[in-house]
């Protein structure tokens, strides 16, 4: 089921409620089972995402290099909390636990592009570019 859900999310940016029934049918499962899978995994969204998604790493290696401050800066600068999207629909903000970029912390990912050694100023630059 994961490959199907990934494909839906790749196409639509999220897995809408309306997709649950057809996926359940194809796989011969109950709607509850499909819903259970979607809700178990952090990376499946059930709400539309912004044009771009900013993932800020919250894990220990990034913490040791100021990720907590970076997280606060991102929230303040975008005026949103984690799991929210800016009012203009441009950027969604998500926490992530480890991008495997831990020797160049702190790290963020914008859509699928990872950036290392990101401080507040660098984050502002990246947001301005995207």
């Amino acid at each position, binding site marked *: 089921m994961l490959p199907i859900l990934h494909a839906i999310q790749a196409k639509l940016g999220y897995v809408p409620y309306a997709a649950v029934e057809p996926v359940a049918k194809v796989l011969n499962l109950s709607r509850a089972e499909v819903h259970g899978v979607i809700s178990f995994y*952090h990376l499946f969204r059930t709400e539309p995402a912004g044009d771009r998604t900013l993932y800020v790493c919250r*894990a220990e*290696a990034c913490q*040791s290099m100021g990720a907590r401050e970076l997280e606060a800066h991102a929230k303040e600068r975008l005026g949103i909390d984690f799991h929210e999207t800016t009012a203009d629909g441009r950027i969604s903000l998500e926490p992530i636990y480890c991008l*495997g*970029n831990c020797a*160049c912390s702190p790290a963020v*990912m914008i859509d699928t592009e*990872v950036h290392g050694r990101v401080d507040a100023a660098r984050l502002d630059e990246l947001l301005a570019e995207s």
Partner: protein
Amino acid sequence: MGATRVFVPSDTTARSVGADAVAVAIQSAAEKNGSEIDLIRNGSRGLYWLEPLVEVEVDGRRLAYGPVGAGDIASLFDANFLAGGDHPRALGATEEIPWLAGQTRLTFARVGIVDPRSLDDYIAHGGYEGLGEAVKLQRAEIVEIVTESGLRGRGGAAFPTGIKWNTVLGAEGEQKYVTCNADEGDSGTFADRMIMESDPFLLIEGMTIAGLAVGATQGYIYLRAEYPLAIEIMNEAIASAHAAGYLGEDVAGSGQTFELEVRVAAGAYICGEETSMLESLEGKRGMIRYRPPLPAIKGLFGAPTIVNNVISLATVPIILAKGAGFYRDFGTGRSRGTLTVQLAGNVRQGGLVEVAFGRTLRELLEDFGGGTATGRPIRAVQAGGPLGAYVHPSKFDAPLDYEAFAEFGAMLGHGGLVVFDDTVDMAEQARFAMEFCAIESCGKCTPCRIGAVRGVEVIDRIRSDVDRGANIELLKELCETMVDGSLCALGGMAPYPVMSVLEYYPEDLGAD
């Protein structure tokens, strides 16, 4: 004279600090200057503190320049770096950089040297020699060599790989599977990603040998979704290997079929635990399974299944190629061979350090790491991921050895070392350990599901000085309950970092 070969790494970390822009700038400067170059996007050597690390091949030797920014390109051309010219960024011959020369690269022998998208390059650098040996052997002989090598699982639990394979070999079943755990969830780790991005055929070769050894015809790589580049490169490598007869029917003339597929995870830390991973591979919620039965006997879809970490599998080819004794001669005690240490967090010289077991933590942190990035004293090092203890500087003379670490309540796990300087608030780190456990709990058992939430609350009360003494006692009891009563190591080990804070950094909790 032919074109000069120039290497610009394309792994995630190199790109995250600007390697793509460097590659573009070199290409366009070369065109402008009329210099003929052959630009190769290799993987990273793992000297992440020097990325982007550009290399040029001069008289058959690779010379390094780093860290190179796009702004350095003009001056590099002015200094004639294509002929090895001197420049403030020049580092000399790559292999002679002490940080690299002081390592024992067995599993990572080819990483950063080859073009990860080229099967020919892999073979030209000794790739598929291990499989070449394996096809000449009986199944039990392959398993015997892996057992003899002393290789233990590098995913965390350090279980002997050969013994696991032997169980799968002996298990009854028409269909058997080889699964690779590439969920690499621990913060401070990137060795699996490096193999997949920088030497993907090595993992394919290791899994193929595992398939031959136990008679499995299908393999899956459970790869974390947070690694989009690794997913792309692995898929491409599988297609190339397939086209060349290294996967599929009659693999490498062995008479046996071995197919391989990547399955993308979806961001749940618990799915790195092997039974949860198998549930996830079956398309379900990643709920932990009760054991027994072992996955080796009833694993994926109920069939006998090998579950191994990327590094365990990627180490098998060199063992087959060079022999069990060659590998086992490295190391100390019951920890044989090499450990792929990942220096991460607040460290001046971070990256991948592969050394034989037995080197001390201090050597890693000081000689390789060069202390903290901030230049302040090291106060704590979290070893072995989010479930691993915070190691106090009084323990830095401990050797890298599974048993030696266990003696003081710590673990080597997947080899990640996350360094913190003296500005760290250890009470906050203890809180995070509980918070992480609460977020990632699969929910199957109460000590973990409820205990972790309670843990966060108790630590919050301690930090705001509410009934401190009583709450510290409560926290200790809660840790014990979780350790003793949890079904799997998430709930069972998340208390370890907390207990290490209680023991070694009590002042941060206001205790004595």
